[in-house]
């Protein structure tokens, strides 16, 4: 009797062991799925690596003909003319000027809209406006470009004396309007994520709505707000269509935003669409400019990554 029950225990254990063993029939499909998923994720990474590779390769070819010193120190950019000069500054200054104007429009207005939506608006208004903001972000930039050239510039001409038809102000402002919804929406997300308990704590100390919003909620959401700002700045620096249409194509070093200028992106468009032979030095300039543009936005994105990580969960 005792031995039989012991046997039964043994067979029972063996059955469990057999059931737990790996089944070949299941492992192979699992493995295939795993490789397919890996391949999909690799495609985007490889594309990026490819782009960077081309940039580096072509820029290296460019810098083997043009010294880096000329590129960084010369103040004239005339690679398409007989007297070739390769100073990047006219393009960099053009880019910084339009971006600065865009940021001056988008950051304050975006943050204030975000504060309104998160702290003052009723949930119903908020849930109506937020999707509209996100739709605004989907308008093709070419539309904004013509809006700048055909609507905003004539309007500004009445107010600003000596404003050229192509200038930095108008596309700068319109670019600011373009990135404003993104700043507002992302900053609003950050403000909304601040725990309601912090607001209650501040109200209980006799804070007014404005004091609670600006002195407790905004500082607590600063990492998210900063991230939205940096994203907006990279967006402005990399924006192409609006400036290509409305800012002009005159790569001359100037700090006067009323004059026509050329941004780095607009220059790349101009050369890409033109009849510059592939492999020529003029053709390679666009890779050098693109490389610098890539480095600028890369630095901004890395900065945003560290800012977000540095301040994340600060209120938890």
């Amino acid at each position: 009797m005792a031995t039989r029950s012991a046997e039964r225990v043994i067979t029972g254990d063996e059955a469990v062991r057999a059931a737990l063993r790996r089944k070949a029939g299941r492992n192979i499909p699992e493995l295939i799925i795993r490789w397919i998923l890996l391949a999909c994720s690799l495609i985007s990474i490889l594309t990026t690596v490819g782009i960077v590779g081309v940039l580096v390769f072509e820029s290296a070819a460019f810098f083997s003909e043009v010294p880096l010193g000329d590129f960084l120190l010369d103040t004239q950019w005339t690679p398409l003319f007989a007297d070739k000069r390769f100073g990047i500054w006219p393009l960099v200054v053009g880019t910084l000027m339009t971006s600065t104007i865009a940021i001056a429009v988008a950051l304050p207005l975006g943050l204030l809209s975000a504060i309104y939506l998160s702290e003052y608006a009723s949930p119903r208004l908020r849930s109506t406006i937020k999707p509209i903001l996100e739709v605004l972000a989907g308008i093709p930039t070419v539309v904004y470009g013509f809006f700048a050239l055909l609507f905003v510039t004539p309007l500004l001409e009445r107010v600003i004396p000596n404003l050229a038809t192509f200038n930095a102000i108008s596309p700068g402002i319109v670019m600011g309007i373009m990135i404003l919804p993104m700043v507002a929406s992302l900053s609003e997300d950050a403000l909304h994520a601040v725990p309601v308990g912090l607001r209650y704590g501040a109200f209980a100390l006799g804070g007014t709505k404005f004091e609670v919003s600006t002195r407790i909620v905004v500082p607590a959401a600063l990492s998210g707000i900063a991230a939205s700002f940096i994203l907006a700045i990279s967006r402005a620096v990399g924006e192409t269509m609006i400036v290509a249409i409305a800012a002009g194509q005159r790569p001359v070093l100037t700090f006067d935003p009323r004059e026509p200028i050329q941004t780095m992106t607009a220059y790349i468009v101009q050369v890409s669409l033109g009849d510059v032979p592939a492999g020529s030095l003029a053709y390679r300039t666009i890779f050098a400019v693109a490389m610098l543009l890539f480095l600028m936005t890369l630095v901004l994105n890395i900065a945003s990554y560290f800012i977000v990580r540095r301040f994340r969960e600060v209120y938890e």
Partner: protein
Amino acid sequence: MTSQNIVQFDGPTILKAENVAVYYGDKQVLRDVMLSVPTHKITALIGPSGSGKSTLLRCFNRMNDLIRGARVEGQVTYHDQDLYDPEVDPVEVRRRIGMVFQKPNPFPKSIYENITWGARINGYRGTMDELVERSLRRAALWDEVKDRLHENALSLSGGQQQRLCIARAIAIEPEVILMDEPASALDPIATLKIEELMHELKENYTILIVTHNMQQAARVSDYTAMMMLTEDRNSATVIEFGKTQAIFTHPRDRRTEDYITGRIG
């Protein structure tokens, strides 16, 4: 029906609720609340979950204003001034009637700034260093944090954070401190410290505390108000009020007795 169990307190009272009803949207959560809060005493609000203790507490500093859809009817008076008079500024009310919450909610700033924040927005004119030391001493936290005043308040333990919140509340010199289960998120040792602190604060402040913990109510409070859902279970009210000792030894209401002895709850 319940009024015979409300002992009218005959000493000085600072806050009074008369026929208070509170609605969240269409739902009535409190009705017919009568309560007098004695000056410089600790009054506990006890009762089962959902009996509107926190809701009643928030009536006294108009925190219900911040909850969308909340509506308060009846009279809530502070020094005989109706707090819901349209002339009354809720910001001024909250400056005089402070509040400590269930979950410690220090600002994500330094310990020092947590104390000075309220003082700054209220236009405090004294020396901030003194204010910080005085407030932290009164909240029995000074010795633990005096060497790291400029560290982030979130680096403190839960119990220290809650005492910081009390220090922050008393830094603006309120007359009344409302406490919404201030120790429910804390361990027994931190809870004991908060309770000892309350005894000391009683000298200068009137304290109204919501608690789930019957022993805590018995330990710390001078007066106790028992809250309970009404018979139709749609809304809640204060069913009994009196000296804590009397409530715990000779409850007049059957439901209070059942609750205190653990038969319901």
